[in-house]
């Protein structure tokens, strides 16, 4: 991902990047911290703009901290929808046909192999 291209990515993708950083964090984040996590490919002002937009949509909440704000993600209306989605799709045993899951379940042998592959790749954990 060329850093120079980052600003030209669709707004939706930028929002997703900021949102994932907030959800993965242990506590509230400042725009600067968010910018650091997502690799500094975005200007601070862009991150601040995205955070304000997310706040207006109700996807994040914010608190005043010092001279600026810190942001916390919240399960908004979309989260409720997703929850319903989860419940409704769980009823359908054929859901795998419509949804493409990122990873499928591992067998014992799969797990052993996978660990060997990742360790063999160096800097493994």
């Amino acid at each position, binding site marked *: *991902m*060329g850093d120079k291209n980052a600003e030209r990515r669709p707004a*939706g*993708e930028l*929002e*997703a*990047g900021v*949102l*994932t*950083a907030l*959800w*993965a964090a242990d506590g509230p984040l400042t725009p600067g911290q968010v910018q650091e*996590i*997502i*690799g500094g490919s975005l200007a601070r002002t862009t991150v601040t703009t995205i955070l304000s937009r997310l706040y207006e*949509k109700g*996807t994040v909440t914010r608190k005043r901290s010092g001279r600026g704000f810190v942001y916390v*993600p919240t*399960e*908004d*209306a*979309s*989260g409720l*929808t*997703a*929850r*319903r*989605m*989860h419940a*409704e*799709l769980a009823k*359908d045993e*054929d*859901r795998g*046909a*419509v*949804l*493409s*899951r*990122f*990873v*499928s*379940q*591992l*067998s*014992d*042998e*799969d*797990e052993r*192999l*996978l*660990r060997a*592959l*990742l360790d*063999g*790749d160096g800097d493994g*954990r």
Partner: protein
Amino acid sequence: MIYCVWLPLLVPFLAAPASRRLASALPPRQAIWLLTTTAAGLAAASSCALALLIVPGATHLHAVAALGDLLTPLYGGSPDAVIAIAVTAGALLAWCTTRLVRGLQRRLRQLRHAARLAAEADGELVVLTDEHPDAYALPGSPGRIVVTSGMLRALSAPEREALLAHERAHLRDRHHVFTALVDLAALCHPALRILREPLAYALERSADESAARTVGSRRLTARAIGRAALAARASSAGDRTRPALALSATTGPVPRRVAALLGSSTEPRTARPLARSFAALAVAACLALSAGASLQAADDLHDGIEVAQGETP
């Protein structure tokens, strides 16, 4: 003349295994097209063959014969055999059609449902507060990516980008359409069922490669997949409600995907060019044979009808 009509019914038993073999040696994108084309083409040809098998027997019915201005029933062996074949083919075709219509309705209902849920979401990404790592693409216009907070916490920031890129590829390339086509084709002919699993794998591989190109690293993408799968397994280890995985003799898709991205030798290396060409030729020949036999059978039937109408051959 009458033998052609049986070929499209038998060819899938050869062509489906051959195309599965070939798909495992092809790059994901080509494998997707191969599997989808094979499944749809063979399903269409075998359904045509069933329909053609009904006609000679049906002409023994006075009403049908009158409709076609036939002076005599179509010739095609002993009347008893012709009628028995027509009845069997008719029953099979009716059964397949019922299954196909039901399957199509079911799939459309699922997709409409997913699209409705996707439309309710505000933004490309929907995060769910859930410690169990999970992520999937929800097809719709536009589609959405649903991911749990547990999944986001299990991955590093660059790995999260790889995850998002993978799911975006599924949505952008409309992978659910290919899945639906092959699933429906498999309802038309039992031999085509074995194409579903290789298609699912090829779609995942295609999304993986897409993600690797987007984030600029195959290794990073491999690590994202591997760590996500391990985290999901660790989380469900004590969970009795999740179905135990029955198959353990074969390597599951996740290690194969990771190995393919790392270029490791665990992935069955692409077959030798000669073997690959041979398999490609075999699949192409089977498709041509199936389509050709259907056309020939239709042509023979047409000739037969003209004879029965009293025209000189």
